């Protein structure tokens, strides 16, 4: 397997952040985002490279990344749907959306905590983009148009 190298731009960003924070642990999330934005998931090789750069054990990155719902450890071609499970969405029938989304096998579904869009609940993020005031019909249309996602 080939290795993983952080882009020059990212390395520059890491240097900048190292100076900004009192401890290098603070760089864990930024560096995880760098890898995920680059590869679409967190590969073991990339995490090992990150652990070399920050001189922290690989286990630390796994531990932190697995705490959050937005990080993925496997590459997936499927559409990534993050459905809010917090109060406002719940009150506006997000459970119904969940039952519907569960039946679709062309998407990767995660239930997440509040995404800060309560005024337009129920909502979800599809491949990182917010879709608000949803119902099953609207969701179906959005997911049907794969090119627009």
């Amino acid at each position: 397997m080939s290795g993983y190298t952080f882009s020059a731009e990212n390395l520059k960003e890491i240097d900048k952040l190292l100076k900004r924070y009192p401890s290098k642990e603070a760089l864990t999330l930024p560096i995880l985002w760098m890898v995920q934005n680059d590869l679409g998931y967190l590969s073991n090789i990339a995490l090992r490279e990150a652990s070399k750069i920050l001189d922290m054990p690989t286990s630390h990155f796994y531990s932190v990344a697995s705490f959050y719902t937005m990080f993925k450890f496997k590459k997936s071609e499927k559409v990534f749907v993050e459905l809010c499970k917090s109060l406002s969405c719940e009150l506006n029938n997000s459970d119904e959306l969940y039952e519907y989304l569960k039946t679709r096998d062309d998407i990767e579904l995660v239930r997440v905590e509040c995404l800060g869009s309560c005024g337009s609940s129920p909502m979800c993020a599809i491949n990182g983009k917010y879709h608000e005031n949803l119902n099953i019909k609207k969701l179906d249309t959005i997911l049907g148009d794969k090119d627009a996602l």
Partner: protein
Amino acid sequence: MVTIYVNNKPIICKDKELLIKVLKENDIFIPHFCYHESLGADGNCRMCLVEIEGSKRPQIACDTFVYDGLRVHTKSESILETNKDILELELLSHPVDCPTCDQAGECSLQNYYMEYGLYDSRVSVAKNKKDKALDLGSNIMLDQERCVLCMRCVRFCSDITKTDELVVMGRGNDSYITTTPFMRLSNPYAMNVIDLCPVGALTSKDFRFKQRVWFLDSTQSICHACSKNCSIFIDHNAQKNQNDHVHRFRPRVNTMVNGHFICDEGRLSYKKANETRKNDFIMKSRISTYESILKHTKKLLQSENAIALVSASLSVEQMLLVKELSEMYLFDVYYDYKEDEKFGDDFLKSSIKESNLYTAKLLDFKLVDKPYEESLISKSLILNFNSEFISKPRPIEMIEFLTHEGKFERSSSIFTYEYFHNDMGLLINSDGVISSYKKSSKVKSEKFTLLKILNDLLDESYTNESIYEKYKELFFKNIPYSKIMKQSQRLGL
């Protein structure tokens, strides 16, 4: 020094000491999972909550530092209620499979439940399901459902061995311990996590389903796997109509030698204690009796020109009696040892595999080298005291004192004597610390001890104590025997 009051009783302790440490040192019962003397505080389990006068809420004892006049309560009604609630949370998703769990009998959850719990489960929803019987490597099995996430094992791998194999994955109710992806638990001290685990989550593949811990007797002993001489407990018992069987070695806390841990190789060296010789005395390849072989040996010692080879793992007392014998019959005593650079490290493993090399040198025994080979030519009798380096250059009379199967079963006369797990003695480790290992009072000896055999050859009746006391001034800086029996003592190099 400051005075604190625990349950209204004054305790004098060092200022700014960790409260939980003070409580434990004074034998005050304080429930806890995550705190461990060797790993320090982590504050994640919340089990050690105590009531502190002047504080609104209960405080964890592992994050409270003592100061003069501190008043702590561990038994008040409100704190008992709090402890019970915390325990109930810890046990929410516990499978309660104590009947099949190896930790039963030495499990903190069980002990605390008996102390604080004694309630019926109020959980009506399904319990969290996690993985069971996961083989992590290094003889360690993980049951994630039994885990209380105290992270002692994770901290051991990150702080002590610095190998970072274990990790907590996930969040909240769904978090679990596992090995870092693409890694196995593999370091020479890995099995210590089994002792560290306060519950039955981490169990030893080697020990599981073998014995119930309450059927085991523990004897204070010393590991003989290398010259570090780590303090251990030998857990053993005799099944009905069977001989005593050793089931495991466990580390015994000794701050002067090994702290809280032992290496995996030493831990698994208990197997050697179950492979000792049967109780037989062999003379000229025939089973003989003790008396006749004793007579035979005495006769040979008087008439023949002897040389002796001792194992550098013999105890101090055994070596002293060999020395006495050598002075009586005027023969030279040699020793040899193995050095395994790959085995040694700067923690608890010494590259010298013999556990009492220090004493062999101290008593002026000679190291096997060329003169030994040369002097063998003129000798007519070899005495071998359990040394594995013995060789037989030509047909020659040989008397062996062995614990295990020897190389020359068919051609030498053999005394079988008790291996260290059923004997007592003193050892000096590679750092010059002298420690004692004890004999279980519950095991009936079937074999003679080497001390008894040597006494019979000398027509003396030394005990472990009297032979040591005789030489303590000459070799052992006058440290009294009784002091070593209580605690290891530093002789210095």
